[in-house]
């Protein structure tokens, strides 16, 4: 029986990580699903859906040589592989401001209370090391409408954080 797993790999970035890891998985008879792979602060991070007949421990052993050769941390979780059921976002929120502790907690706190379900969030620290800026982009579903999000964000804006809320009207043709 085929199982789905979420394979997580994290380590110092170097060219060829994706090729080495996915080659090992292919040779081991695995099928890949959806993935998020991105460099975060000099670390390369992989979250990868893997379908295989192997047990969790066997999958760990399969990927271990490629991971060890590159000093990557490996973690495997058993998951439900629900493909072909994408949730479509209806709002995009972008946030930026001088970096300080608590921006994400404050922004996502008020958004959650106003009915937002986050589907996709990525953030970066830009600017210079003496004047860092925090930049965040969120896509989600606004269960209580976009106006509710706008209202909830007012106090955040008054605190000097730039926030824009844009409806996503998906054109299907």
């Amino acid at each position, binding site marked *: 029986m085929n199982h789905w797993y979420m394979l997580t790999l994290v380590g110092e970035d170097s060219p060829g990580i994706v090729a080495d890891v996915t080659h090992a998985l292919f040779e081991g008879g695995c099928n890949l699903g959806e993935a998020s792979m*991105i460099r975060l602060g000099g670390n390369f991070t992989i979250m990868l859906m893997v379908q295989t007949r192997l047990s969790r421990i066997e999958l760990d052993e399969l990927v271990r040589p490629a991971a060890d050769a590159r000093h990557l941390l490996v973690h495997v979780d058993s998951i439900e592989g629900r493909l072909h059921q994408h949730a479509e976002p209806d709002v995009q929120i972008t946030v*930026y401001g001088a970096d300080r502790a608590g921006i994400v907690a404050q922004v996502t706190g008020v958004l959650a209370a106003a009915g937002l379900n986050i589907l996709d969030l990525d953030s970066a620290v830009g600017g210079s090391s003496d004047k860092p800026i925090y930049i965040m982009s969120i896509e989600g579903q606004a269960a209580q409408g976009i106006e509710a999000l706008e209202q909830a964000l007012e106090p955040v804006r008054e605190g000097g954080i730039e926030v824009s809320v844009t409806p*996503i*009207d*998906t*054109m*299907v*043709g």
Partner: protein
Amino acid sequence: MAVLPILTYPDERLKRFSEPVERFDAELAAFIADLEQTRLAGPGAVGIAAPQVGRAQRIVIVDVSKMKRPVPNHGYLVLINPEITHWEGHEPGREGCLSVPDFTGNVIRATRIHLKAQNPQGETVEFDMEGFEARAVQHEMDHLDGLLFLDRVVSRRTDVFRRKVYEKNS
């Protein structure tokens, strides 16, 4: 009238170049009626192109007049042998496609277009369009050249905050 089967990628027929319409007859009118029925049967589709039902001819339908959040529009449009004669501006927007189920992506399209086409009677019609309607027309016209929105998708991550990094001393 009938709802026609929609071709989905990787059906090769979606990648063909479509031929101009030359005969504006009852058969064409009947096909257009079927094509519109098929569009209405699709989930939330604001447009459809003849190649999506396997007919390699330059025929598209667009109707963005029934949006939840209203947008500037020209109502129900049947565009035959359409041509864009002028483009202005560009912006990203989210697109999906009846021929590519369960995936949407961001695509950059012209913001304003001038469009020349023929109606089902073969008469020349012209439109100035903007925004969502212009996007829908560009998406449907791509089908006539064997292109899907997948050919034009840009990264979701870099959409808003795009910047170039120039390396010193390289």
